[in-house]
């Protein structure tokens, strides 16, 4: 039992590591191509900035919290066999619900987070319902709802004067109120997530309890997935919908629940980021990257909730490192490197197969001849391989 867990764990971990290393090497190559004289220092910056100072480390943690949530959202849906590509929309709506809570209704931050969860859940449930009842592909609906969420939120904020920064003494009105400005603090002092002394420890304003909350949620999700009958049902549906149906599991209900929970997780991510006090929602016409970055976070972690913690920290880490590449390199180069790693993390699935096969090859000698017949699927795999040759 433990053996198997460990083995798949090692296989997944190795595959993710390989894709990270290859991605970074490609990044180094890019740095050499664009500006050879700074390549080595640049790469050094990329790799070490995140731990160079406690301030930078604080930023790594700060950014990882929302990433972890969107990553969890994607991972959770994946486990049920669904692809929630709408995390960015759910994240945006979550952010909006949270901000409305603390600005319009003067609610404390934790109520804001609860609202964020509800907002994300509402938006996530729609593709789930469409999929369960009408068999509409969840990818298509959730992509469309990304845009619907974005523009609905922008439109609403534009029409809610209190929400905008200029209502609180700032000049610009293309973003929401700064929750830490003096005027706002007097209005609602409990709007931001508490720092619990972390700011003093790290010497940085960026850090707050957000990352702790996110990690706790990841652990809860792991428990739900691996220890409860609900998780058992969800995974069964994800692995084999026909068999779950046959066993009397209500697959439709589970699809809706899974998408709703996934949306709720992404929504919390939006709440965590915009209730930090250091971020303001800006009215732009493009989807927020934080939602999409949840996909590589989930892929890199092979959809394991605990793995998501580490992959979110890693992506956040190289993003912070990437910021240090400027001005010698343009900001975009770090996006390219991350994209490469993301791309390779898709290959991680493939590599998992190869590494897995190495394991199998080494282990077969131990299995006695009686049980030695390859399963049909393995045989198919071999067959496929042979035909490829």
């Amino acid at each position, binding site marked *: 039992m433990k053996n*198997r867990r460990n083995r798949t764990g090692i296989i997944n971990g190795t595959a993710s590591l390989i894709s990270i290393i290859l991605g970074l090497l490609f990044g180094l190559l890019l740095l050499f191509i664009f500006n050879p004289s700074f390549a080595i220092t640049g790469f050094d910056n990329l790799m070490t900035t995140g731990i160079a100072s406690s301030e930078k480390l604080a930023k790594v943690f700060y950014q990882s919290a929302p990433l972890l949530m969107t990553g969890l959202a994607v991972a959770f849906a994946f486990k049920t066999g669904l692809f929630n590509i709408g995390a960015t929309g759910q994240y945006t709506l979550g952010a909006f619900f949270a901000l409305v809570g603390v600005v319009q209704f003067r609610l404390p931050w934790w109520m804001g987070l609860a609202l964020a969860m509800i907002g994300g859940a509402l938006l996530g449930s729609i593709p789930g319902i469409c999929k369960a009842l009408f068999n509409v592909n969840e990818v298509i609906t959730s992509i469309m709802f990304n845009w619907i969420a974005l523009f609905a939120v922008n439109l609403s904020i534009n029409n809610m004067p209190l929400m905008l920064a200029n209502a609180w003494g700032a000049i610009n009105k293309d973003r929401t109120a700064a929750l830490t400005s003096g005027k706002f603090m007097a209005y609602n002092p409990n709007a931001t997530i508490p720092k619990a002394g972390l700011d003093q420890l790290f010497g940085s304003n960026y850090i707050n309890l957000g990352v702790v909350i996110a990690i706790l949620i990841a652990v809860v999700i792991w428990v739900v997935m691996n220890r*409860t*009958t609900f998780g058992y049902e969800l995974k069964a549906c994800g692995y*084999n919908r026909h*068999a779950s149906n046959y066993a*009397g599991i209500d697959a439709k209900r589970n699809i809706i629940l899974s998408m709703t929970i996934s949306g709720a997780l992404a929504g919390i991510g939006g709440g965590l980021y915009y209730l930090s006090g250091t971020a303001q929602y800006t009215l732009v016409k493009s989807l927020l990257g934080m939602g999409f970055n949840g996909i590589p976070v989930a892929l890199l972690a092979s959809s394991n909730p605990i793995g998501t913690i580490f992959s979110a920290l890693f992506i956040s880490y190289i993003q912070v490192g990437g910021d240090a590449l400027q001005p010698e390199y343009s900001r975009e180069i770090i996006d390219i490197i991350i994209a490469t790693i993301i791309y390779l993390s898709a290959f991680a699935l493939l590599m998992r197969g190869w590494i897995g096969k190495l394991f199998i090859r080494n282990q077969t*000698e131990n299995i006695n001849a009686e*049980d030695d017949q390859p399963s049909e699927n393995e045989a198919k795999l*071999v067959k496929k391989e042979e035909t490829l040759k």
Partner: protein
Amino acid sequence: MSEYVIEMLNITKKFPGIIANDDITLQLKKGEIHALLGENGAGKSTLMSVLFGLYQPESGEIKKDGEVVKINDPNDANRLHIGMVHQHFKLVEIFTVLDNIILGVEQTKNGFLQKKEARRKVMELSTKYGLQVDPDAMIEEISVGMQQRVEILKMLYRDNDILIFDEPTAVLTPQEIDELMQIMRNFANEGKSILFITHKLNEIMAVADRVTVLRKGKGIGTLNVADTNVDQLAEMMVGRKVNFNIDKAPCKAGAPALTVRNLVVGDKRHLKKKVNDVSFRVHRGEIVGIAGIDGNGQSELVYALTGLMKPESGSIFIGDKEVSRNTIRERNDMGLSHIPEDRHKYGLVLDYTLAENLILKNYYRPQFQNHGFLRFDEMYRYSEDLIHRYDIRSGQGSATVTRSMSGGNQQKAIVARELSLQPEVLIAVQPTRGLDVGAIEYIHKQIVAARDDQKAVLLVSLELDEVMSLSDRILVMYEGEIVAEVDGKSATAHELGLYMSGANRQTHMEVEA
């Protein structure tokens, strides 16, 4: 000129962890029907794939007419006039018969298909060998028997004279099997050589000249069919004496446990009903078998009974409760167990462990959960118990991922799970499909034991032998209707075959419902 048209000498083919063919020699004479006998996993398919160029052997050589040849892919095999009818036909469903036959060897003129000549040749072959086909019919519209004839014509059209038949009788009625045997004999008389892969002994006795037996990747021997008998072949195939007769106590039928009345199941695409006004009863302590050719509504009947499909009308009773509107889980809880026909699609979550699969039907019961948390200790205790009782073999016991288990053991796991639910009614569909003789014997025993334990068993199988040897009563389904009810002891394959093909039906049905 060599005596043999094809010789496969000392072929060895290894896969990771298994030697699929271990030093196997197979020699095919011109004009003979040579049977290749072995259980599932004995290496028959691998050997044929080597001959057909799909696999390259690690060692050994292939000779055609005494000369060493190298077969790298199916095209090479084709050039050597080797043709094969695969167990699962390789036909394009939405093409016509003629298009399928010429596919890959089309004649063209300035880029346009020239079908006239092809049509002439196909019709000629068709008449010559008595392989009746309609060249303009779509594959999806013709019967399985005719599809097989198309496959055979494909080989003939390519002038193949070494014909491989991979388990060709699995999809045919007894009458169609007789026809096929006659066709094979005609080919042999013409000087074509036939390799006939099968695990059915009586077919070998009926048609083959020689037989080569494989077991666990090794060649056990080649015999003249005239000098051997079924018992000897079975022993060679399995490695021990086999008892074909199932010992059954006389049937002690009790109260009706499953009653079906006027059940109708529709089909979304066609107007034709998949199950049309079907009524029957299964009593406690009896096995009722449903015989029929694949696709005559058996699957849909089972789906409707188990709740996977909604019936259009009619009623289903478990005991005396109407359940046709109940969910799958409610029916399970009322005592309905179901061994599904497709164990990979329905029976198992292949990526779950054996233990997780064994509780698939009852994980939600208090035994296995505590406020929504799974009780892993209970799950493992239960699983170990079933593994022990039903002799389920796997690499790592309860923790084995079921995908990595052999088909026989996967099926045992399903049987164990379904029987351990203590059902009132057991619906077993194709319970032994693709299993070896040992596993078949075992599962048959379990089914009979369930019946002796006063459970009602509905057995649906395409294997006529299985239906005949297990059932106390046999119902025959044809085009969605039950056309006959026959006593299990007195039924003959010939009689059932006539009902199965629609050539005969009972006018007065004694099926009371």
